[in-house]
């Protein structure tokens, strides 16, 4: 139970809305961070489908010029990617608890 | 090409039990394919079973019949060795027919 609490907190923390309207530079930064985290998750062979859809949503929003939504989506993608990284590393040992012996 | 109709007719006493499985997509016309376009309706409208020159069973089907449709029924008045003729037509003018001996 402790582990999934960690995941939930991580997700909530990163979704805090930013105050002023976002511009393209903010989007580019947020997207780059999200993409890096997503690549790391893929490297651990534990990517989540929702991370990819959030990244796609961010790009789509940015193409449409709506940088507020684009930054929010990119931040969500980053949080999801980080959660999947957290999951992969904690599961390295945690799986043994469920093993039938 | 093997027939699209698989049939098994077994008779015991005066009753012949018939089971048929037909290879057909039975598309409703309401489903989208992976590219998002509607797959046009393509379904069997009528399936007929004849034995000794007489219709023994006629099915009128809509789009709610499952893919690769299956049907089972029984009828009297036939015996081992008689021939059962099965034929279907679909809404695109497609059709198939086959004849099976009652086992």
């Amino acid at each position, binding site marked *: 139970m402790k582990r999934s609490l960690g995941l939930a907190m991580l997700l909530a923390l990163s979704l805090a809305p930013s105050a002023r309207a976002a511009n393209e530079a903010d989007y580019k930064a947020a997207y780059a961070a999200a993409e890096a985290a997503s690549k790391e998750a893929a490297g651990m062979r534990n990517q989540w489908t929702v991370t990819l859809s959030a990244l796609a949503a961010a790009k789509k929003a940015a193409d449409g010029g709506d940088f507020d939504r684009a930054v929010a989506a990119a931040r969500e993608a980053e949080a999801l990617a980080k959660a999947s990284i957290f999951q992969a590393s904690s599961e390295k040992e945690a799986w043994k608890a469920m093993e039938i012996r | 090409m093997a027939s699209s109709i698989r049939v098994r007719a077994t008779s015991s006493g005066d009753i012949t039990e018939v089971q048929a499985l037909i290879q057909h997509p039975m598309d409703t016309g309401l489903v989208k394919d992976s590219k998002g376009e509607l797959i046009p309706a393509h379904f069997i409208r009528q399936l007929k079973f004849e034995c000794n020159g007489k*219709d023994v069973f006629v099915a*009128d089907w809509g789009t709610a019949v*499952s893919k690769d449709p299956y049907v089972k029924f029984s009828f009297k008045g036939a015996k081992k060795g008689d021939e059962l003729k099965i034929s279907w037509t679909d809404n695109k003018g497609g059709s198939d*027919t086959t*004849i099976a001996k009652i086992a």
Partner: protein
Amino acid sequence: MTTTPKPHWRPHPTRRLILRGAASVALLGLGNLPFAAAPARAAANDKYPEEAFRQKSEADAIKALYGKTAEPSDKVKLDAPEIAENGGVVPISVTTTLEKVSSISFFVAENPSALAASYRIPDGTIPAVANRLKMARTTKLTAIVEADGKLYSATKEVKVTVGGCGG
């Protein structure tokens, strides 16, 4: 004559032989079709109930198909699963002890068009049918039997939902 269900994992030699026999005979039969086109006469009176299949609601479909209303009867035994294994393939069968049956039809109330299938039962054919139908969502399923000019019905609810945990 109900077949006792054989334990699944043992191979079914008899079923394979019968099937293979039927299949090979089927191919054989194709060759010597006595007449090319089905006789027009036979096709004439097999009018496909176009209008009935187009109706959306069950009541309209019954009216279009039979032109009268049905009354529930316990002589019509409708067998359908309580929860459908899958909405695309729902095994349904009906049997009846009524006499002089001329037609059996299935109506799926919640489907885009209610009439699913209609069977003509010439005399000499046992009034019973088993088939597999599609159901869009949890729905009332009605089987109607036309016996001696009157309509008798049986209704059952079938729960239908998707499977899996998310995706």
